[in-house]
Structures are given as C-alpha cells and as structure tokens.
C-alpha cells in the first residue's frame, strides 16, 4: 500500500523523476572516477617547443654543449628551431646570464654564450631555417663555409647585444591532442622468420688481447650482416642479453661479450634458434706461454 502510494506520487507530473536524476549523478561520478583517477589522460609524443620552460632550458643547454663538442652550426640551429624561440641568440644569452647569476657551471655558461655568439654572427643569419624542422637530426653535413667554429670570448653582454636576427613572427603553437591510447613502442628486435644456426666456431689466439671474448657475427642466408638481433648468453649464475649492430665500425651484424677463463657459457641468437651449449674461452699456446684466447662464432640464417 505504501509502495503503491510512493509510485503514484513519483509518477505524478508535478514531481521530478528523482530516480533518473540519481542515475545521472551516479553515472557522472562513475565517469569522473574513470577519467580522472583510474585512467587519466596521458600526454605523449610532444614536441620540444611544448616543453616546460625549465625543460626547454635543459634542452637548450644540451644543444649548446653538443655544439661545443661538435661545432656544426647548421645542426645546432635545426635543433634550436625545434624550440621555436623567436630570438634565439637573445634567449641563449639570457639563459647564460641566468645560469651565471645562479652560480651555474662555467662550462655550461661558456657553451651557451658561444652558441649565442655563433648565431649572432652575420654569416649565420642567412642560414635561418623556418620553424617546423626535420624530426631527425641532419646527417652531419659539416659546417657551412665562412662560419666561425670557435668562440673563445665569454663576454655575455656582447652575446646579448650583437644579435642580428630579426624577430620572426610565428604562428601560435597548435594545441596538442592528448590521447589515452597506449603508445606504440617500436620493437627492439626485428622479426625474422627463420632461425640462425652456428656456421663456424673458431678459436682466436691473439696474445695481445687482454680480455677473452665471444666475437659473434650474425648473417642472413645471403651472408649479409644482420643488426638488431638479440643474443642471450647464460652461465652459472648469470644471464645477459645484448644486440648486434651496436659496433657498426666492425660490422652491422657484430656483437661481442667478455668471457672469463674456465666459465662455461650457453648462447642463443634470436628467439627461435637452438641454444649452443658448452662454450668456453680456449687455451692458446703451451706451457708457460699459454694464455686464454677468444672464440669467434658465425651464425647464419637457415
């Protein structure tokens, strides 16, 4: 009886349907809980010009130090362009002054001042690049003709006041699109169909080599070096994974590993290959001239 009265009262046109409002509020709270607490928005894949000011300072300083290490003005300018500063030399000089007043490292201050001076030089002004720079660094094209490479002066005032670049009007930065989609991480390993098999195993006896090593070369079926292949080495008490291609000066398919005399290693190349067991650093020479050598392994794809 009471329940019927309640329904009748609830359904009357003068009374708002409270159960609908209750549902809406519960849903709203649920939605806010999900979007703000359980799965909040995570910003990824931003550009350097969207960084916080402190982070921009870090980035700018890194560019200046890299320029000091490798005086390639074109590359430094391209990198600074990613920050979309209107007055590049001025910004750098300001940062140098800020750093100086904060008692920062002299090397850092010098690097910023040198880069500011280099950008202020008349020869560099004609090389101005528009914002929106290539996403990969330039491939080391070298310095431009006539560009001074060293700037021994630490006169910050000069760096501040000799700026010759006119302010470049820039369009307002586009609003980044926050996303809650998980970021796709590039796989560290290329997917290769066929496994690798041990083609050659040779001891390397070089008396002048202080540390015995596993010298590994990985090739495809055509004998071409393959970079980015994971090699897992295990021994009694340890395991380590490393990759081919990190020493391109030797070979793109090359990798090595420091061995210890008397320790037995197991090794596997890639994910599908067979494990090679019983690998040991060989003993070279005889008698008092004996020493521990290295082991060269050649793997080829089936």
């Amino acid at each position, binding site marked *: 009886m009471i329940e019927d009265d309640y*329904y009748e009262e609830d359904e009357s046109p003068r009374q708002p*349907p409270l*159960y*609908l409002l209750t*549902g*809406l509020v*519960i*849903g*709203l*709270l*649920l*939605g*806010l*809980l*999900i*979007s*703000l607490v359980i799965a*909040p928005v995570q*910003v*990824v*894949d*931003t*550009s*350097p*010009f*969207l*960084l*916080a000011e402190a*982070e921009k300072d*870090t*980035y700018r300083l*890194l560019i200046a*130090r*890299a320029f*000091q*290490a490798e005086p390639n003005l074109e590359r430094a300018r391209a*990198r600074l362009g*990613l920050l979309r500063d209107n007055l590049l030399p001025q910004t750098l000089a300001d940062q140098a002054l800020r750093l100086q007043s904060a008692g920062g490292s002299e090397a850092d201050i010098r690097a910023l001042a040198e880069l500011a001076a280099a950008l202020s030089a008349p020869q560099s002004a004609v090389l101005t690049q528009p914002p929106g720079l290539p*996403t*990969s*660094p330039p*491939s*080391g094209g070298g310095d431009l003709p006539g560009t001074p490479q060293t700037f021994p002066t630490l006169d910050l005032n000069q760096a501040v006041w000799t700026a010759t670049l006119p302010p470049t009007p820039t369009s307002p*930065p586009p609003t980044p699109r*926050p996303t*809650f989609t998980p970021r796709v991480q*590039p796989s*560290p390993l290329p997917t290769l169909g066929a496994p690798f098999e041990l083609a050659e195993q040779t001891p390397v006896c070089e008396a002048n080599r202080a540390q015995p090593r596993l010298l590994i070369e990985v090739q495809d079926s055509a004998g071409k070096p393959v*970079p980015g292949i994971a090699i897992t080495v295990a021994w*009694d*008490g*340890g395991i*380590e994974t*490393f990759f081919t*291609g*990190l020493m*391109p000066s030797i070979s793109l398919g090359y990798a090595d590993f420091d*061995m*210890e005399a008397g*320790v037995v290693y197991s090794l596997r190349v890639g994910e599908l290959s067979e494990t090679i067991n019983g690998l040991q650093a060989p003993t070279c020479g005889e008698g008092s001239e004996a020493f521990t050598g290295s082991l060269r392994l050649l793997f080829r794809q089936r």
Partner: protein
Amino acid sequence: MRLRRLIWFVVMIGIGAAAGIFYGWVLRPTQTSGFALHTLRSDYKADYVLMTAEIYRQDGDLAAALERLRALEDAPPLRQVQQAILTGQQLGYARSDIETLANLFQALQKGLPTLTPSAMP
C-alpha cells in the same frame, strides 16, 4: 513499470558516465604546453640521446652523460641508448651518428658493473 524504471535508471547512469568521461578526457585536459622531457616523441628522444653521446665523446664524462639521460626519462640508460640506436637506424641517421651512440652504449656497458660478467661465481 518497475522494469521500465530500471531501464531508464541504467540509461541515465550510462549518459552520466559518458558525460563524466567526456569531461575528464576531452574538456579538462587544457594543458597545451609545459610538458616534461619524457613526453617527447621517440625521434626527439633519440636526438636528445645523440646530443648526450656527442658531448660524451668530447668530454668523456660518463657520470654527466648518465645524469643527462636520467633527466630525459626514468628508463635504464642502456635501454635509452639502445632505443636511440634503433630509432636512428630506422630514421636513417648517418653512420657517424650511430657510431657516436654506439660509443656511448659501450661506455655505459663498461661503466655499469651489474651488466658485465664480472659478477660470476
């Protein structure tokens, strides 16, 4: 009658939840700048690591290089350099740049004792 009420109740929860999610994911994130270094796209990160490697090649200061890599993100430094090498290879970095990165990688491998086979029984 009860069933109809129940259906509408659930529908309203759904509408409310959608509105709450829309607010939290679309309307509320008004931050358009002021991001941290770790939010950078992978190619910018690779260039950051390359700069670190260039500086390391010149000054040989591994501790400073580690500090710079830590400023970029919390990932292990070796992993960061390895990722930069792979990104660089994908983007067609010059061979000299890859070698610079590889040089830092090797230095980190030697400098981080837990990754060398010296901890053997």
